[in-house]
């Protein structure tokens, strides 16, 4: 009886957005009189940070600091249609809608600035800190604050824009399954190390090294938060979770967080995240959706590591100590016994 160490690998890809497309999202952008920007949506932030990332996307597009952008979301009386937050679609679909709306608003803003400066709008650029100036002549400038005031009170212009993004729906060909499920895919490769106690069947995950390719890391801190959380969820799926551990007997189903098995802080392995960025042609600044993918490769990597450690295959999730012990006993039993 011993603790045995093993290592496993898995590599996966994952489509961004609703399978087969047909999932629209819209955005509206407008400026306040003093040059702050409002993004109006009906999209849902589940805790992943959608509001922050939409503020950064809008700010990048208009050419202002992100703190000048406020996200107003979650009211069907005011927010334009969004299909919802699911299928790794938020950043990709809504982000593209915000870019389109912000691009239109930026154009009006530059036109107003051009009138104020008596130049052509096409000769202007933003400095990213709140000013607009003539390309190559930074001294010929106007602040976005003054531009917005001029638009509202002098020029009678609305610095605003409408945005929408829709991947056209694909219908699978009936006999062959020819179809276009998605426009871009994220990728991952995970290596997991485990210790398996061959007396108790207990698995301790020693380390998880995840490499994710996500198009573009729009906010690396938030990317880390989502990918680490996903990696933990993958371990939880592999080793712990089910609502019906002895189905069809329902008596053992967890009804609260004491009974429903999930890893606690002490069960979470050292987790490493390495991010590669191959921009997607249709991604907002190249971004793809890794929100679901990041919880997937750990599951088979754990299963493969357990086999590497003790030589048994558990092909039924979750891989509980009970299943491992039963498999070890079957393996040890003499043939025909």
């Amino acid at each position, binding site marked *: 009886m011993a603790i045995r160490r093993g290592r496993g690998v898995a590599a996966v890809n994952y489509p961004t957005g609703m399978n087969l497309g047909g999932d629209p999202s819209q955005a509206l952008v407008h400026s306040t009189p003093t040059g702050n920007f409002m993004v109006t949506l009906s999209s849902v932030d589940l805790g992943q940070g959608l509001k922050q990332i939409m503020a950064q996307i809008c700010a990048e597009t208009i050419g202002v600091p992100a703190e000048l952008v406020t996200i107003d979301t979650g009211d069907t009386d005011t927010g334009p249609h969004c299909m919802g937050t699911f299928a790794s679609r938020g950043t990709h679909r809504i982000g593209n809608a915000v870019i389109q709306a912000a691009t239109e608003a930026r154009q009006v803003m530059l036109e107003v600035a051009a009138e104020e400066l008596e130049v052509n709008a096409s000769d202007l650029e933003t400095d990213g800190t709140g000013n607009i100036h003539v390309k190559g002549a930074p001294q010929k400038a106007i602040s976005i604050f003054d531009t917005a005031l001029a638009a509202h009170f002098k020029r009678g212009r609305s610095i605003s824009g409408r945005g929408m993004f829709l991947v056209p729906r694909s219908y699978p060909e009936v006999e062959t399954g020819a179809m276009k499920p998605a426009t871009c*895919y994220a990728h991952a490769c995970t290596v997991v190390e485990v210790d398996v106690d061959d007396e108790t069947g207990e698995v301790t995950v020693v380390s998880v090294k995840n490499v994710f390719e996500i198009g573009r890391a729009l906010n690396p801190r938030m990317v880390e938060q989502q990918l680490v959380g996903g990696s933990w969820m993958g371990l939880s799926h592999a080793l712990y979770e089910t609502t019906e551990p002895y189905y069809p007997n329902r008596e053992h189903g967890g009804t609260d967080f004491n009974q429903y098995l999930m890893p606690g802080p002490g069960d979470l392995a050292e987790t490493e995240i390495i991010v590669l960025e191959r921009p997607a042609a249709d991604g907002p600044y190249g971004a793809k959706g890794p929100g679901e993918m990041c919880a997937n490769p750990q599951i088979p990597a754990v299963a493969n590591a357990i086999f590497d450690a003790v030589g048994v295959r558990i092909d039924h999730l979750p891989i509980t100590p009970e299943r491992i012990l039963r498999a070890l006993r079957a393996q040890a039993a003499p043939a025909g016994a």
Partner: protein
Amino acid sequence: MIRLAKEYFADQRDDDLKQLGQAFHRSDVPGHVTGKTNYFADRSFPGMLHLKMVRSPHHHARIRSIDTSEAEKHPGVARVLTHKDVPHNVYTILILIQIGPEDEQVLAADKVRWKGEAVVAVLADSERAAQEAAAKVKVDYEVLPAVLDMEAALKPGAPIVNEYHGQNYYRYDSGACRKVRFGDVEKGFAEADHILEQTYRSSPIEQAPAETTGCIVVPEGNDRFTCYTNTQALFFSLDNTSIILQMPGHKLRFVGGTVGGGFGGKVDVTTEPIAILASKLTGRPVSFIYSREEEMQVSSPRAAETIVIKDGVMNDGRIVARYVKGYTDAGAYSRHSPYGAQKGAAHYPGPYTIENVWADTYCVYTNRTPSSAMRGFGVTIADFALEVQMDKLARLIGMDPLEFRFINAYRDGDMKAHRQPTEGAALIECMQEASKAANWPVAEKYLRMSSYKGG
């Protein structure tokens, strides 16, 4: 803990962004961690009623009669609702994207098809009164034989789980399953040095959000209803509610957008229609919030799946044929499962270039808790099956599991089984970096490979 490996794909990026690519702090986090963020349930309205659901104790039963008279007399009870009160009682949520038929009753009328199905809604001044009154509702059931697993469901002569479908599987336009046919798998198997067929299974998994599913509805003075909800999809929920209640969309206002975790568990439309109906019939605000037990045992989990993979592989490491049959246990009703099952068909054979592929994915009805969306559904369990299978194949031919994946990895321009050319591939580079980061050595030729066309 995070490292951006900028050396990969540097030729495809201008790293010149100003507001993006920056590790700004999230503006909403101070509110979350100091308890100042407003969630839907952080509201209370004068005269608010609490809704509790009477649920089926049986997997499958005919309803002979429903007697609510004692419950109605219970102190504090304002109203008791049955199927007769629901204007359009039979619904399915994906009808909005033309995936029918309507196959589920908001409140069970003639039958219950899973243990936990909603039958009667009780509204009272307090949660306690609603709970006590719910216990006084008498439903007379005739228990029917239940179909508790997919194999039993698909056997000839199995009891029909859901009469709205007429058979125990979802009928796609392609027939009993979504099909992918590419190349000639039989020819591939005939040429293969080895054939390996294995079966993989999973059990249902709970989304386990911190905040349970629910909503609070307020009747406004202008004959409109405001629904504060933690749905993952506001207009999707609004439009489905409009159908179920036969109420024009302009009468409805849904407010949300700040949610304590979803993971797919909040894209079914289970609380809003009945709470709005209750608010309309009583003229009072209504709160319907799942208990933790309801969240874990009543709301839809990730489906149980069974996946059979048969591969033909050559001694040099090339996979020459892959045949997959995937089964998704939808439970008693469709919800999002027909979508999840066909997402699986699109995913096979995984991120590998295989010339001969056959995939069939089935959405199967049983008397199990309806499954629905959960993070990655259609793909997560498929990846478990595919990647364990890859490990077994590598060992079968005595090859390193990581090197085996390099040999089969897809690259730009490769034709996928669903007949789209591969674009923007990056699997090879992820594996190269993993090889280095995990100190898992592979032959130099694999480190020189590229996902680019001809690489």
